[in-house]
């Protein structure tokens, strides 16, 4: 019995995901049709990419509020670059730009000791401003040959799965591996667990921090490329509040917002818990989609309570 209890506590995100999945299957016949699930995977790959990178930022004890704005800016930049008609420029340059924005973010946090929430808020405003200046707030159209091939990418399937889901999946696997089996991954935990100790152990704390924000910038840029491909235009005002969705997914996944403990795996469960809730509300049809926010909020608190309450009980007994 206590074993089951400890599994429920340790895997609260997975348990919640399974419960919600079963509820969705039970009440919404359309839910477990392949078309619906396929769309679910495709729609949530972007937020998934961002949440995976956000997990690492949060593991170091930081936070990145710039992700949504960078993602949106990259979609605009990629659309803008379509005039070159050069796939390398259209696909690679935006990734570099996104990574550079993450690098700046990390540099300001690590070297100039600005609080992450402020540094990334600054980057968010800069990125959002650039999108608006470039477009005057209108969507930016793709020109020339890329108009044909760029939107096709998001529609590709590999076997039964959407290509963009695979991109997300591979990205997640790589960083799950790095966190567990690479020195850099372990250093991320060390920095978030006890920064001073990490320093004394010879870990280059600043470098680790700059790296995780750069990865976050890269992931946002990758999501931005997917966005421009899916939408067929650059989207200067899209992705509002994605940073909060990503943070919510990380928190539901049980990663400590103080840093030092947590996992990418459970963040992914968090992403899909939020996704299925949204999906159910869509399938309901007659419920205002703003209910999604209320339900997400309640769920966030319930899942976090599941993680905290066993600690209270233990302390009371001790």
């Amino acid at each position: 019995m206590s074993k089951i209890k400890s599994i429920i506590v340790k895997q609260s995100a997975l348990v919640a995901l399974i419960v919600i999945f079963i509820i969705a299957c039970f009440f919404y016949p359309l839910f477990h049709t392949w078309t619906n699930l396929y769309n679910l995977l495709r729609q949530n790959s972007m937020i998934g990419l961002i949440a995976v990178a956000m997990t690492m930022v949060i593991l170091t004890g930081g936070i990145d509020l710039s992700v949504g704005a960078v993602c949106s800016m990259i979609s605009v930049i990629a659309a803008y670059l379509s005039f070159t008609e050069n796939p390398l420029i259209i696909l690679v340059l935006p990734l570099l730009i996104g990574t550079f924005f993450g690098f700046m973010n990390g540099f300001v946090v690590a070297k100039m000791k600005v609080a992450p929430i402020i540094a990334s808020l600054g980057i968010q405003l800069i990125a959002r401003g650039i999108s608006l200046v470039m477009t005057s707030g209108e969507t930016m159209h793709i020109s020339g040959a890329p108009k044909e091939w760029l939107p096709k990418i998001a529609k590709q399937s590999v076997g039964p799965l959407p290509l963009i889901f695979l991109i997300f999946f591979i990205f997640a696997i790589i960083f799950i591996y790095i966190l567990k089996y690479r020195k850099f991954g372990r250093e991320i935990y060390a920095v978030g667990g006890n920064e001073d100790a990490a320093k004394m152990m010879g870990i280059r704390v600043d470098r680790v921090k700059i790296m995780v924000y750069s990865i976050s910038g890269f992931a946002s840029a990758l999501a931005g490329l997917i966005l421009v491909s899916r939408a067929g235009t650059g989207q200067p005002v899209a992705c509002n509040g994605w940073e909060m969705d990503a943070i919510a997914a990380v928190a539901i996944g049980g990663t400590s917002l103080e840093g030092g403990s947590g996992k990418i795996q459970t963040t992914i469960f968090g992403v899909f818990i939020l996704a299925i809730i949204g999906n159910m509300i869509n399938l309901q049809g007659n419920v205002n989609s703003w209910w999604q926010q209320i339900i997400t909020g309640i769920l966030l608190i319930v899942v976090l309570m599941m993680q905290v309450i066993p600690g209270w009980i233990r302390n009371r007994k001790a």
Partner: protein
Amino acid sequence: MDNNLLLEMREIDKRFSGVHALDSVDFSVRKGEILALMGENGAGKSTLIKVLTGLYRKDGGQIIFDGTERNFHTPQDSQRAGISTIYQEINLIPHLSVAENIFIGQEPRNAFGIDWDSVNKQARQLLLDNGIDIDVTQDLASYSTAVQQMVAITRAISQNAKLLIMDEPTSSLADDEVQVMFSKMRELVAKGMSIIFISHKLDEVFTICDRTTILKDGKLVGSYDIDKITKLEMVSKMIGRDASNVLKRTVGVYEEKPGTIPLVHTKNIDNRVTLHGVSIDIRPGEIVGIAGLLGAGKSEYAKVLFGCDNTYTGTFEVEGKPVRLKSPKGAIDLGFAYCSEDRKVEGIFPHMTITENMTITALPRISKFGVVDSKKQKAIVDKYIESIRIKTPSSEQLISNLSGGNQQKVLLGRWLSMNPRLIILDEPTRGIDVGAKAEIEALIREFSQNGISVLYISSELEELIRNCYRIVVIRDGQNSVELTDQDITEENIMKYIAKNAKETEVDHG
């Protein structure tokens, strides 16, 4: 140079914006010895260590380590050369596994990446070699401080350190755990390692060290073989004045005025976990000491008095009236004050000024319609800065800029401004140097003269002996003995602390 020297630091100089932190200090460590680096806070001990390990750049002098002149620029440099440091506050990562804490930065690898099997196997073996049999895959945080300290030592050993620096390593260990650590240290030295041992606890220094180097005000006082110097001489050299009073009792017999009832009367306090029948009376103006091992129930008893633990059974009366405190608020309303043993966690607000720190509990009394009357506030702060001699250029200094002793005084000021009837002091001099200690103790005796009762909890017996009218020894959550007047001696207290104590050998040097 002498073949027998592992480390030689010559004429080391270090200045911080005008302050001469190290003034041409010579310092050396022989191979296979335990050297005590002694001095008050601010004497330059930690500056010297930081220059050695590469955290600070020296302004002048030479460092010769293991036969060659070295200049370490970062802690990594000195670690690579064979210098490991263990700090007072354990510098490990709480949420990583024990094994990983030992190996982080130098994990064994295979083609796939970190080889977790051999990380865990090797860590387990290393700990077994040190006589510790634990599950190394658990989080470090799930083990006691003592185990964590041993993990830190194991980490240092695994790095093939030639010189181990231990900065107050015993400050959070119980006596029996200290003994385990000491035997480990002796083993390491026998294998040829050298150890620099920094501690405020004289007993420990005299038990474990071969030699001592004493610093004062950034200058070298001298180096002495430990068997050729006495405790008194050592303290005198550290504080630079005659210290023959240090080990003497400073209070006489408590004179009970007829007809007074005890301020606090407790009988058979039992919370079924840590306390199993503690009975203590505290009379007005009396200083009562509690002695006992770590975990004997000293702080736990204090927490009952201060309303932090409401699960107990037993009698608890204040001035003859039974009370049951449900929260610290209730205790404060009765005129009780409590200085926690953990100043940093439960005491100071590091980002606030002296004024703000001192008046935080007094705010309701000095506010009108929720607005703080800054004149009244200033009056309180000035009064206590003056009367308890807090050394600061201004009351608007951040508290974190003060030394440990002065921070403690600010906290005392905080409680004094409430006009308390009882002050509970839990390890009031922890981490405070000898000079400031004497001042804090003098203040405590002043409280008593002004009619304030004091419950004095300390793991340093000398302190209790000096200052208490009466000492209650508790053991395993129960009263062991109550000592007064001439019965208050170190030997007596030790005897009752150790009596029948489970598996505890008290090695008193």
